C-alpha cells in the first residue's frame, strides 16, 4: 500500500516538475510548481515528517508561490515569443543533465548502503512537532537566531530594492 502511494506521488511530482520547466506560459509554470510542492509535501508525510510537510504547504505553496504569481502579474508577462534555436546551448545543457543523472543513478544503485527498507519506529504516532522543536532549540539555538537576523536583513533589503529610486 505504502509503495503504491509513494510511486503515485513521486510520478505526479516528477510530471509536474517536468511541466514547470517546459511550458511556455509563466502562469502555467507557476501553477505546475504549486502541484509539485503539494506532491512533495505528501512525500514528506510518507516519511513521517508531518511538521515539515505542513511547513512545505504553508511556506512554499502558500507564501512563495503567491509571491511568484504576484510578480508575474506585476510584470505582465505573456507567452514567450519563439526565439532562434541555439543548438550548442541545448546540446551542452542536455549533455550535462544526462551525464549528471546517469552518474547519480549509477552511484545510488552500486552503493550497498542505500537498498534497505524503512525501519519501524519505536513509537508510532509520536509528537513530531515537539521533537523537531526540542532539537531546534536545544542543539540549533544559535543558527536559529542567525536565521532571524537573516530574515530581517532580507526584509530591509527587499524594501530598499523596491523603492523607485535608490539615492
Amino acid at each position, binding site marked *: 500500500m505504502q509503495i503504491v502511494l509513494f510511486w503515485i506521488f513521486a510520478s505526479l511530482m516528477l510530471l509536474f516538475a517536468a511541466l514547470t520547466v517546459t511550458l511556455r506560459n509563466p502562469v502555467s509554470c507557476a501553477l505546475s510548481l504549486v502541484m509539485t510542492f503539494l506532491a512533495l509535501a505528501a512525500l514528506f508525510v510518507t516519511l513521517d515528517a508531518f511538521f515539515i510537510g505542513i511547513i512545505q504547504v504553508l511556506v512554499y505553496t502558500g507564501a512563495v508561490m503567491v509571491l*511568484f504569481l504576484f510578480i508575474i502579474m506585476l510584470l505582465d508577462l505573456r507567452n514567450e515569443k519563439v526565439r532562434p534555436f541555439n543548438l550548442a546551448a541545448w546540446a551542452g*545543457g542536455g549533455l550535462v543533465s544526462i551525464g*549528471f543523472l546517469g552518474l*547519480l543513478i549509477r552511484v545510488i544503485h552500486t552503493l550497498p548502503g542505500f537498498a534497505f527498507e*524503512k525501519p519501524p519506529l*519505536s513509537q508510532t504516532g509520536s509528537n513530531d512537532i515537539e521533537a523537531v522543536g526540542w532539537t531546534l532549540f536545544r542543539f540549533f539555538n544559535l543558527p536559529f537566531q542567525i536565521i532571524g537576523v537573516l530574515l530581517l536583513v532580507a526584509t530591509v533589503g527587499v524594501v530598499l530594492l523596491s523603492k523607485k529610486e535608490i539615492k
Partner: protein
Amino acid sequence: MTPTLADYLLVSGILFTIGLTGVMLRRNIIIIFMGLELMLNASNLSLVAFSRYHLTAVGLPNYSGQVLVFFIITVAAAEVAVGLAIIVALYRARQTTHVEDLNSMKF
C-alpha cells in the same frame, strides 16, 4: 512492502536534474528561478529521507535532518523575496526578463 532509501534518493535526484535542466536551458529569468526552487526541494527530500531511514538509538527519526530542512526552507523564502525584488528592479531598468537581452556584461 515499503519503498527503500534508494527509491527516495532516485526520485530526489531526478527532481534535481529537472531543476538543473530548467536553469541551464530556459531563457526566462523567472523560470530559471523556479528551477532553483526545484533543486532546493530535491535536496530537502533527500535530507528528510536520510533522517527517516537512519534512526537514532531510541528508534526515532534523526530530527537534526528535519531541522536542517526547516533552515533551508527559511533561507529559500528569504532568497525568493530578494531575488524577485531584483527581477522587478531589472524589469524596471530594461523592460525584459529574457536573459539573452541582458548582455551588457557579456565578453
